[in-house]
């Protein structure tokens, strides 16, 4: 498969028409894109908000430009300004990453009209697939199976209740412009539908500036399996395998794998064909992903197409040997795909999303400054990160700090590898999801792959409530006592020396203050003691 990719190289330089790329994003994906550019000999321009000055993605690029204050709507979401900056810096292409402006048709169009190359699908394909409602209509026309539901935004709660009764409860309310679980609600009884619709609309309005919400039958117990496709501008469209993304909390993916335990080579072929059919119907070019629900009988239903690079693209890269971000650049530069069929997946890859959320407290967002960072390393371990020591994690952006990805010959070996990688990983300064992931790797049901998209929600209380192993608890008690002893001796030393200052002073022989500084040490300790008692 590696030779297939490089076979094209000797002919016309793939990246001739792209010399400098503006990366309209931040965090780990901006770092990832800058690296891909560098490997292809392309210059990269980072943009950053005032909150991201000196951030890893800024330093990963060849040039950087401050584009506004922390608020995304005044920085990363200002498409007109980003195009201006791209032209000023003589960039010839814009890579949008994921999130932010990546799936905005108007932005893709504006980039093109400004004479720049858009590293993504044509604006028309985003329009066809960007809205879930439009994507459904298109999929139905292309003969791809879909979940029963409406293709038009709901008018009001009365209409929602009528349709829900028709499909049968439970039903799912979904933001038409949505993604990432925002503006989604499961409704299990008629009494809940009005309130759920209201809050879904509000969340959709806040997140996307569009409160259109539609309704569909909620299929219980399915897996979320998605197909990565690559399409060039010359008519070649290839499915490059599936990703299993069923480990979700509040419709947010937490852990992704490639391949899926539920997908046989035969099913992979059928799902791949369905994804390619849908992509072709949309006139799709570049990297994209068709999301499906896969039920226990092997029936699958098209959900939507993500018209961008996905967060979880590394697992596909690891099992196929393809560099998807480089292929985004090469396809945008007009290169032809040198293969018409993807290889069968080699080995197993797992990705854990490391977020600044505290699993011990309901995954509440945690903020702070990264004070220490130790990254796991060794064979088959990949870290796609957007943090370093000194990075301030605030509330302005998505809580995802990094992705930890492993690759191993088998799923069992990949789980073992992820387990030790998580144990090596140290992030100090903010609470993170690391322990959640470690508990997942230890879970017997997860180890068997016996999961669906509702599994985690049901499992979470038991998963997070389970006590740490006895050996760990005892070790913690011993460790704490050794720390307390060390602190106690440290305080005693401080008293003896009169503290660090006193020590420095008494080091100067015959210093007149030496004796009195010792007294001050005692006095300070006494004062501290009395304060603590109050």
């Amino acid at each position, binding site marked *: 498969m590696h030779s297939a990719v490089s076979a094209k190289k000797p002919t016309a330089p793939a990246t001739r028409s792209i010399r400098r790329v503006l990366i309209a994003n931040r965090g780990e994906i901006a770092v990832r894109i800058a690296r891909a550019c560098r490997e292809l000999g392309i210059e990269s321009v980072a943009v950053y908000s005032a909150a991201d000055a000196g951030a890893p993605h800024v330093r990963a690029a060849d040039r950087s430009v401050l584009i506004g204050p922390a608020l995304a709507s005044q920085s990363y979401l200002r498409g007109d300004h980003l195009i201006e900056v791209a032209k000023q810096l003589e960039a010839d292409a814009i890579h949008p990453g994921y999130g932010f402006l990546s799936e905005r048709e108007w932005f893709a169009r504006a980039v093109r009209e400004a004479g720049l190359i858009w590293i993504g699908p044509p604006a028309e394909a985003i329009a066809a697939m960007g809205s879930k409602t439009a994507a459904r209509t298109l999929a139905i026309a292309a003969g791809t199976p879909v979940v029963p539901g409406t293709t038009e935004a709901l008018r009001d709660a009365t209409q929602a209740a009528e349709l829900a009764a028709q499909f049968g409860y439970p039903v799912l309310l979904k933001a038409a412009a949505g993604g990432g679980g925002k503006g989604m609600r499961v409704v299990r009884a008629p009494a809940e539908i009005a309130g759920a619709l209201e809050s879904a609309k509000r969340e959709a309005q806040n997140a996307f500036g569009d409160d259109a919400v539609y309704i569909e039958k909620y299929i219980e117990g399915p897996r979320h399996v998605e197909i990565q496709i690559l399409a060039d501008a010359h008519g070649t469209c290839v499915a490059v395998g599936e990703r299993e993304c069923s480990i979700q909390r509040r419709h947010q993916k937490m852990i992704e794998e490639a391949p899926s335990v539920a997908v046989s080579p035969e099913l992979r072929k059928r799902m791949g064909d369905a994804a390619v059919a849908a992509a072709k119907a949309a006139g799709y070019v570049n990297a994209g992903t068709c999301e499906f629900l896969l039920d226990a009988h092997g029936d699958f239903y098209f959900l939507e197409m993500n018209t961008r690079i996905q967060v979880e693209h590394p697992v596909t890269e690891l099992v196929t040997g393809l560099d998807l971000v480089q292929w985004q650049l090469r396809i945008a530069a007009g290169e032809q795909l040198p293969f018409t069929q993807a290889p069968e997946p080699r080995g197993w890859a797992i990705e854990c999303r490391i977020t600044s959320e505290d699993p011990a407290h309901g995954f509440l967002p945690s903020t702070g400054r990264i004070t220490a960072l130790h990254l796991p390393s060794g064979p088959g371990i990949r870290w796609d990160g957007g943090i370093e020591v000194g990075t301030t994690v605030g509330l302005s952006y998505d809580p995802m700090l990094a992705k930890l990805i492993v690759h191993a010959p088998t799923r069992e070996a990949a789980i073992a590898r992820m387990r030790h990688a998580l144990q090596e990983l140290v992030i100090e300064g903010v609470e993170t999801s690391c322990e959640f992931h470690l508990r997942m790797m230890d879970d017997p049901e997860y180890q068997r792959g016996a999961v669906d998209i509702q599994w985690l929600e049901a499992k979470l209380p038991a998963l997070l409530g389970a006590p740490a192993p006895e050996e760990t608890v005892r070790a913690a008690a*011993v460790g704490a006592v050794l720390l307390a002893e060390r602190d106690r001796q440290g305080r005693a030393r401080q008293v003896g020396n009169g503290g660090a200052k006193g020590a420095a002073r008494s080091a100067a022989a015959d210093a007149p203050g030496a004796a009195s500084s010792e007294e001050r040490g005692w006095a300070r300790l006494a004062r501290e003691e009395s304060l603590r008692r109050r």
Partner: protein
Amino acid sequence: MRYVVTVAGREMEVVVDESGMTVDGVRVAAHLEGDHQTAAGTGVGAILTIDGRQHRLVARPGDGGRGSYDLQLDGRRLAVEALDERTRAIRAHAKAAAPTGAAPVVAPMPGLIVRVGVAVGDQVEAGQAVLVMEAMKMENELRAPGAGTVKAILVQPGVAVERGAVLVTFEAES
């Protein structure tokens, strides 16, 4: 020195003297190496060795003052309190003297109040959702830390609050 250690809802007695350490009466050989406090740009932890077996340890001071530590041990996070007898007695005394009252609901992060689900005078149970706040574009439910009666609601929907702001107070159930 005799310590009472509280960890994961359990209490253990750990005694340290010249001859070594016992945990709940069982002798263990334990020592700690390396920098145990991480600071900006330094240290990724210490090695804690217990009966010859090594554990990776990162420690930082906990919220409870002296003797309180937040540990990361073998990938797990554990809040531990190790109090010597004297400190423990002082704490117990201070606690007894302090006025009792139910803990309020406090904003765990800066954000926007979306909904308040209770009214003054409502009876709430421990863990009951009291209000919804939005941060990082996600709605988060905040729950009552204990059972009680709502005494005051200090915020309303649409109000932005800072981390640590007191949102709802309670009278403890008598």
